[in-house]
């Protein structure tokens, strides 16, 4: 009896142990001269880093990356909890008001540019039952929307940006990131640099913040995916929010064209962002200052190239460059160098499909200079492959570093995107493919099938013709011939308001009727049940 009781569990345990042993044999090991790399940090960069990790696996490198947020990554790095960290903003030092410290005091580090991207604004405005597309906004309008100064879509400032296009009478509900986010930090940096007077009505102490403040009719959502879900929901009519470009692409939602310094409205495509970042500078002035090696984007915001997307920025990898670092071995440093060499070069080709932008030559060269510091810290590390001339980055020609390949291949914006002209409706967008060649896809917001080489060159859908004379009786809008993507005609609808149903009146009448009906059914039975004589219980 005693033996039988214990047989069952013993068998189960033995089976599990054998299964584990079999599985352990399957577990893969890193190559002998590479070691496991552990990193964490920004979720903004997570998409492309995951792709690089997958690409690095056949080369023998094993990397693990967890997206816990930029600040979490910086803290982890300072606490020796990871081998590298990725962050949108550099260490902030000591906050003057709260005296809190955000620094890595013991561990030596350097900043390496990882991948670039533009802060894109996606929106959900329905007009005549269809999603409005091709909305253009200037930076000032965006700043006023996101500080609560413009509250309705039919505001004259928005109409002026869109060259007189009519918008419905709809409350604007801005959606912001409620969690601490590097995307917010990039957006508020731009706001503070370009429109400080408007921004500081909301954030009085000035400067950037990772936690966007609440205001007016704004809605907070946790994470870019929830921002996108809030905007895309049926109840999201009238919302506008800032997300990474890939989220809007994947959901098929339109993205705002932002006015640049040359007077053109452009989208945050890979090429527009890359062109903008040719003007990015690295702070090389004072090695002892905290902003040493961080990005200076002031010239990016005001880049006069007509293809510039103003809100462009890139994220950093925080590299351990100390020669005495309790986590880093030679094998780990070699893995890090080779991983980031791949990332800076061939890996940038993956940036476009994921909604990022490949780094231009100036940033790649700066990055390689930082990688050389690892060799300075540990001579056993080989940096033979760290060479721009051997680099497969799609923004420059590997063999000839004098030509500005980017300027040659990035397409110019259309004439109807110029301030005072257009607006372009139902036009084509340009997306960079995996092989670096720009291709036209269909209407904006469609996901480019460009992960395969030789991407399709879809014909651009023509703008819908200004419609014939049919007027929809209910809403007073002109019914045009719908284009391929359902965008509206250039002549906008007449906004009509529908009167609210009176609260009292018909509802009261209907309620009384309902009550009477129910009473008619129920009251006779109740009366009968109460007045009948108690009878013998029927079986």
């Amino acid at each position, binding site marked *: 009896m005693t033996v039988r009781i214990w047989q069952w569990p013993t068998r189960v345990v033995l089976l599990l142990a054998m299964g584990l042993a079999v599985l352990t044999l399957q577990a893969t090991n890193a190559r002998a001269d590479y070691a496991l790399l552990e990193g964490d940090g920004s979720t903004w960069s997570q998409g492309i880093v995951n792709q690089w990790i997958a690409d690095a696996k056949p080369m023998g490198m094993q990397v693990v990356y967890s997206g*816990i*947020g*930029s*600040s*979490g990554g910086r803290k982890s790095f300072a606490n020796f909890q990871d081998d590298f960290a990725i962050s949108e903003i550099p260490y902030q030092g000591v*906050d003057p*008001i*709260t*005296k*809190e*410290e*955000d620094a890595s005091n013991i561990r030596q580090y350097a900043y390496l540019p990882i991948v670039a991207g533009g802060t894109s604004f996606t929106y959900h405005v329905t007009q005549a039952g269809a999603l409005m597309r091709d909305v253009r906004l200037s930076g000032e309008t965006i700043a006023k929307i996101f500080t609560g100064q413009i509250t309705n879509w039919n505001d004259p400032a928005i109409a002026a940006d869109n060259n007189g296009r009519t918008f419905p009478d709809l*409350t604007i*509900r801005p959606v912001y990131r*409620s*969690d*601490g*986010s590097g995307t917010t930090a990039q957006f508020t940096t731009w706001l503070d640099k370009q429109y400080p007077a408007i921004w500081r009505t909301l954030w009085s*102490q000035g400067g950037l*913040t*990772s*936690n966007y*403040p*609440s205001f007016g009719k704004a*809605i*907070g*959502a*946790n*994470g870019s995916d*929830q921002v996108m*879900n*809030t905007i895309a*929901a*049926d*109840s*999201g*009519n*009238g*919302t506008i929010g800032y997300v990474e470009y890939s989220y809007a692409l994947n959901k098929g939602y339109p993205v705002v064209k932002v006015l640049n310094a040359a007077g053109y409205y452009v989208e945050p495509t890979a090429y527009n962002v890359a062109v903008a970042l040719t003007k990015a500078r690295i702070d090389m002035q004072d090695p002892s200052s905290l902003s040493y090696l961080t990005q200076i984007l002031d010239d990016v915001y005001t880049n006069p190239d007509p293809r510039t997307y103003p809100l462009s920025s890139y994220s950093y990898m925080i590299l351990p460059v100390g020669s005495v670092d309790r986590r880093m071995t030679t094998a780990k440093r070699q893995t890090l160098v080779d991983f980031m060499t791949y990332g800076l070069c061939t890996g940038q080709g993956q940036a476009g499909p994921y909604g990022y932008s490949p780094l231009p030559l100036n940033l790649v060269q700066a990055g390689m200079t930082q990688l050389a510091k690892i060799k300075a810290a540990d001579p056993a590390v080989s940096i033979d492959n760290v060479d721009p001339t051997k680099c497969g980055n799609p923004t420059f020609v590997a063999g000839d570093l004098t030509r500005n390949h980017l300027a040659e291949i990035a397409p110019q914006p259309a004439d109807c995107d110029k301030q005072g002209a257009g607006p372009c409706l139902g036009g084509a967008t340009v997306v960079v493919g995996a092989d670096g060649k720009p291709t036209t896809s269909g209407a904006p917001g469609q996901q480019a099938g460009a992960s395969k080489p030789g991407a399709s060159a879809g014909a651009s859908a023509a703008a819908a013709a200004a419609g014939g004379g049919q007027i929809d009786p209910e809403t007073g809008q002109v019914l045009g011939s719908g284009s391929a993507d359902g965008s509206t005609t250039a002549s906008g609808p007449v906004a009509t308001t*529908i*009167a*609210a*149903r*009176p*609260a009292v009146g018909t509802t009261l009448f209907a309620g009384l009727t309902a009550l009477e009906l129910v009473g008619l059914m129920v009251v006779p039975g109740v009366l009968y049940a109460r007045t009948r004589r108690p009878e013998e219980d029927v079986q």
Partner: protein
Amino acid sequence: MTSTYVPTRPADRLPDEPRPVNRAATGGDRAFVLGSGAIGASVLVITSGIGLFLALQAVPTIARYGPTFFTQNEWAPDEGKVGIAGVLLGTFTVAVVAMAFAFPLALATALFISEYAPVRLKSFLVSMVDLMAAVPSIIYGLWGFLLLQPQASRLARWLHQYLGWLPFFHVDTDPNAAQWDQTEYTASAFVAGIAVAMMVLPMASSVMREVFSQAPAGEREGALALGSTRWGVIRSVVLPFGKGGIIGGTMLGLGRALGETIAVLLIISPSFDLKFRPLEIGTNTVSALIAGRFGEASPGQLRALLTAGFVLFLITLVINTLAAMVVARSRSGAGTDL
């Protein structure tokens, strides 16, 4: 004449005195008491270790912000204004909404499975309730956001239309407009509370069901023999017996409702004002605040967040102590007879 012989023991000439009885455990019993006491003490050490960890964070925070920490409802550490009043109110609003939905549904489910379900289906239904408890909370968060929110916002609008004269059913919009502002009813404590209720009710229901199935068969049969209906048996035997289990299950569920993080985080739009209107957009809870902010928090801000967690822990302690006093008086709380 008869005589009765009463044998006496030789030593028994002493006057009548009570025998001294030693109640202390000896031998194996003593080992059992000490051993289980050691395990209980270690559990206490672990759990109060967490409480101590939180308390250690609380001391510098309260020292820095003072008693305004409990009265301030803004959370703006960059401006030096940190307070948990709004957040605590939001936590309790969400928990109350969740328990208002979960308690009757859990009770109904437990009674259905233990009393009304066909015997063949019982184990299947029990597994289904267990499955409901095991769904990851992120899935409930997404389900709540994508599937539940449209329906719940309509229900909130109905409540506002017909019961809006009650102050806590009021929302700052016109419910009778032809194009009613649906967004104003989303991302609220109401929607989050319903999603949390879905997570809480399998836990409470399982505990209640376990207790109901232990109701003494003799009393059930006695009630039936006296001619009561099924509901009569439930009302007179099962529910009074199960009061301790009902309260225990509800407390377990309330604990989960107060501490639920991810689902609330995904649904709500955080706002820090003192919100007495669960139907309106905007609320915040302690767990959602910690989870949303700890990534970008500096050490001082992290301490403030954990202090909020500590306050929540203390309040839960008080509520549970009160509930325990009620449970101890009920039959399933104080030990039962055959």
